[in-house]
């Protein structure tokens, strides 16, 4: 029998991190873990109506599998007013270590997804020579278009990795590439940029770990990524 679900009274926005070995969790893996954590933490999440009610959770711009992140976002609807710091602590305790809640706020009126315009990434390449990386970054930024190919479920896809890159530089520590990437369609992932860098710089395919450091509104002139929890002025 179909049951009536309690209506939502509040929306909460959550920033969370995907760290260490849990960077290998896919978005679907995370969704299942998060929905279980909501129940374990006793968060009064709202459910959709119907025969198979689903918890009301909106996910925005998930990092690709294999990438770590300090700045993933989602929004949940709850059926009772909640205290954000308490939700944050309870959810964090209910999630496995490595999936960590960073911040919870009550949603304001603007759309969260609309504010996630760009990402700040770091790509650590412990086995790559700094000079060669620096040269590759310079060559990449000098190109108007850098076409790369990526394997998808539907075969090989070609996309331009250059147009999304707002800013990119190499830090000799690591060495690590820091870059700001505009969210556009098709999505340009750090791996796509790396593919372009490797080709242009003649770099070997060495191990790397990409980490999303921030996600939010893009300041086009400064090339910086802001905080999506701050309403635009």
């Amino acid at each position: 029998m179909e049951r009536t679900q309690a209506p939502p009274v509040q929306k909460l926005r959550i920033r969370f991190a995907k760290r260490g070995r849990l960077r290998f969790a896919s978005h679907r893996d995370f969704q299942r873990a998060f929905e279980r954590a909501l129940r374990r933490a006793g968060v009064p999440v709202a459910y959709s109506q119907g025969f198979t009610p689903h918890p009301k959770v909106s996910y925005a711009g998930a990092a690709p599998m294999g990438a770590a992140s300090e700045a993933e976002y989602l929004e949940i609807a709850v059926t009772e007013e909640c205290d954000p710091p308490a939700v944050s602590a309870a959810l964090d305790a209910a999630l496995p270590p490595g999936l960590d809640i960073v911040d919870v706020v009550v949603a304001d009126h603007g759309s969260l997804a609309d504010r996630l315009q760009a990402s700040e990434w770091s790509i650590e390449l412990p086995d790559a020579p700094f000079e060669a990386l620096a040269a590759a970054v310079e060559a990449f930024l000098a190109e108007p278009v850098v076409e790369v190919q990526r394997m998808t479920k539907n075969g090989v896809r070609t996309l331009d990795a250059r147009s999304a890159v707002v800013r990119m530089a190499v830090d000799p520590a690591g060495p690590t590439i820091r870059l700001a990437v505009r969210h556009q369609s098709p999505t340009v992932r750090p791996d796509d940029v790396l593919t372009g860098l490797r080709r242009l710089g003649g770099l070997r395919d060495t191990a790397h770990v990409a980490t999303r450091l921030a996600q939010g509104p893009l300041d086009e002139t400064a090339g910086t990524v802001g905080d999506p929890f701050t309403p635009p002025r």
Partner: protein
Amino acid sequence: MPVESLFPRLEPLLPSVQKPIQYVGGELNATVKEWDEPGVPMVRWALMYPDAYEVGLPNQGVQILYEVLNEQPGVLAERTYAVWPDLEKLMRQHGIGQFTVDAHRPVAAFDLLGISFATELGYTNMLTALDLAGIPLDAADRTDEHPVVIAGGHAAFNPEPISDFLDAAVLGDGEEIVLAITEVVREWKAEGKPGGRDGLLERLAASGGVYVPKFYDVTYLSDGRIQRVAPNRAGVPWRVHKHTVMDLDKWPYPRKPLVPLAETVHERFSVEIFRGCTRGCRFCQAGMITRPVRERSISTIGDMVQTGLEESGFEEVGLLSLSSADHSEIGDIATGLADRYDGSNVSLSLPSTRVDAFNITLANELSRNGRRSGLTFAPEGGTERMRKVINKMVTEEDLIRTVATAYSNGWRQVKLYFMCGLPTETDEDVVAIADLARKVIEIGREVSGRRDIRCTVSIGGFVPKPHTPFQWAAQGDHETVDARLAKLRNAIRSDRNYGKSIGLRYHDGRPSIIEGLLSRGDRRVGAVIRTVWEQGGRFDGWSEHFSYDRWVEATEKALAGTPVDLDWYTTREREYAEVLPWDHLDSGLDRDWLWEDWQDAIDEVEVDDCRWTPCFDCGVCPQLGTEIQVGPTGQKLLPLTVVSTGAPTRG
């Protein structure tokens, strides 16, 4: 000395393999202990389920032992699963050994490697794991430095085909015996490992509860049959007995179910509501080797469900057993749980295939919160005669009345389980399944007034198993099985009125032949398994990896020069006097009772359930000093005052 984690070397390989999350561990409720604890000689177990993580993680047996062992001070248990061929290849390239998912420690560094075999089709995966771990495949080649490799699970009731690769095997319930083995290992280590590896194995064997294959010699007759199985040293008993946990309320595990990040085959919290089954279905190895029936009480079940949901965050609860509707207080359990979780999104499931109206009452109760999609019943045989042979006491009237109740209660689909290739089976017994399905649809349309109801017929190939009355039976050859299934398919398809409402699911008969070889094989089959593995055999339980031809070729090669072959092991009927490879392993069942039951099967004579009728002397209770433990306790489940853990999230 601490052991280093293999993870730093594994991590760079993970982006290139399918579903890397399955190799990283870090599940909710997983335990990682220090390698050493001050002042205690540690005993360290690696527990393996020899299939992919997605199948192995939910396994109850491994989860129970993992928790039971880790609760003890001075004991460490970690889990390991079969790695897919893509990672296996990379691990070989980079010299990375078989690892545990908990702390990524090398399996080779543990004292014991316990492998749980729910099915024989995991044997080749065991060889991959041993080889990757750097543990010699042959138990005879291992030294004091290698883990003791112990098999458990239902397939371990005939471990002879893998006896070359095992140091030991354990029969029956694992909860108590793993702790006993742990203490033997601890003492042996504390004493400075007297007698080396064999010294330890002798201590284990002397208990009569651990089978050490190499302490037994098997001799053969010239025609290939076994002449004798006998201990080859002093202090080793002639027979090894199975273990039975008598009070399940004392062992309420898993308490803290493992909750994986990765998607697995069962996404629910499962509670075993009883162990054992005495319905006496003659094909059913599980029902024979887990006797007697031991119920968990309604209050323990209620507590386990509550804690399990809180600890896991699962939304579905499965009430497991071999025939869950048979619990003496199942009605109160179902109603009590349905009341407790009414208004929540928790769903309850009861895997039961009993063909009666009570089963539907239960299903109605448990589906209060959800949709009435499908119900499953298992008549197993197409004709009354066939059902008498297998002792499945269901008449056609029972079945029709039951499905009529189901359809009139709003259930839209009925699934029926049958077997093909049963002893004495004829074409008519199988084609009769089509008539039965037709009658099911006919009554379904009548009582529901709808034409969109469905019936799915699902057919499994019968494989004779050790420790059952059919252990002497000839397995049906795959040509006959496939021909009968083709006739059944044609009979269903050609029916204009009902054919479109009947679905048919079945597999070809060839994999069952290999399962039959491994189930009733003896020590000579070890060479076949090794050959298949050397030729690349992996994941034999997966149709996309299983190769019948590879098994047949390996059988011809490995058994060349012996009087036995694939047919000898599978389609040959055995005589009473023949020594069976597992006769020295005591499941408690009296061999003469099994033989009488086999004769009764041929004569189409049924036997009752000893829970409700007098004992029929199967032998288990007196042989093992056990007894039936069933309710009713008369207790009821009280409503929960606090449903969630009460986290202070509400403002």
